């Protein structure tokens, strides 16, 4: 007999409610598979985001049983509790509808934290060689694989408490730019990161590093920014 999962999904906007669905359990089933099943077979009206389905695009993040996760790589048997799943939109972002949130503030904060690359070379210039084993390049590489899923942003208590805090993803990006020898906007970056709502607003709860699906360490990046811009750091 097919095992049935009880899945409660957030429907509606900010004042929405959880609606219950029964979904057949399958082997190696992901949470995204469950949501897709519901939309295709039970409720075509369900709104959610996804694209690559292989953990690269970062668009399918949702709150699953209270924890923000990338749903395409989250297996149901690892997170369901007694055959139950509660799937809600990401926290700390405004709900557009059902499981879809407004990501605009998340990306605006990237800009606010100085996350836009600025270079001085054109395509006509010779490419500047960067030693892949240099200390700065290794630090940049450790922070660079962010997929912008906003899982860390959703799990952050400081973002929840303070609207002006740019959040872990934006500061992790800032740390990668701090270490990018080709980035010419270091002065601007410093000003943005040290501003109110920047790195010193972080309380080091480390929910971000705990929840990052690609095992980045945003809390470590933020601590490194704090250290680098302090009197003990190597200021750029």
């Amino acid at each position, binding site marked *: 007999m097919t095992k049935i999962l009880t899945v409660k999904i957030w429907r509606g906007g900010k004042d929405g409610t959880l609606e219950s669905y029964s979904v057949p359990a399958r082997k190696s089933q992901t949470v995204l598979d469950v949501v897709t099943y519901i939309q295709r077979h039970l409720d075509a009206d369900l709104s959610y985001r996804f694209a690559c389905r292989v953990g690269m695009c970062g668009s399918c993040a949702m709150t699953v049983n209270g924890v*923000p996760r990338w749903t395409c790589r989250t297996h149901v048997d690892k997170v369901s509790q007694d055959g139950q799943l509660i799937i809600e939109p990401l926290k700390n972002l405004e709900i557009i509808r059902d499981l879809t949130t407004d990501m605009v503030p998340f990306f605006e904060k990237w800009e606010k934290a100085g996350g836009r690359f600025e270079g001085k070379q054109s395509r006509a210039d010779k490419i500047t060689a960067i030693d892949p084993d240099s200390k700065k390049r290794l630090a940049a590489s450790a922070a660079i694989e962010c997929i912008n899923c906003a899982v860390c942003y*959703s*799990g952050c208590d400081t973002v929840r408490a303070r609207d002006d805090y740019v959040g872990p993803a934006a500061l992790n990006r800032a740390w990668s730019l701090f270490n990018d020898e080709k980035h010419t906007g270091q002065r601007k970056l410093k000003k943005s990161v040290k501003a109110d709502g920047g790195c010193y607003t972080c309380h*080091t709860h*480390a929910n971000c590093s705990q*929840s990052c699906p690609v095992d980045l*360490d945003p809390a*470590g990046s933020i601590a490194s920014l704090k250290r680098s811009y302090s009197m003990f750091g190597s200021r750029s």
Partner: protein
Amino acid sequence: MRQSSRHTSYFAFLGHRLSGLALALFLPFHFLVLGLALDQGNRLDDFLKWSDQPLVKMAEWGLVGLLAIHLAFGLRLLMLEYLPWVGQRKHLVWLGGGFAAIAGVLFLIRAF
């Protein structure tokens, strides 16, 4: 507490913050008693005798515990933010908790 916050590093944050708040509440009383030494020495002596009761000693033990927790997790935070750091270094949390527990036990041994 949100489910996403139930992890070791978060408990260290909570320990540091809550012990800090409790110590901040205690400090005015501490200074009030210290102030007795300036012009009311007899009242201070009476208070010190009163504070020899086992129940007060137990309260002092709680205070020592709070101080140890605040010191240990405060040092952890300084280490995380001022030393080259990779990863969450959760062992620092266990070290801090262990230090606080040992400080509490040592106080109890000496108090009774």
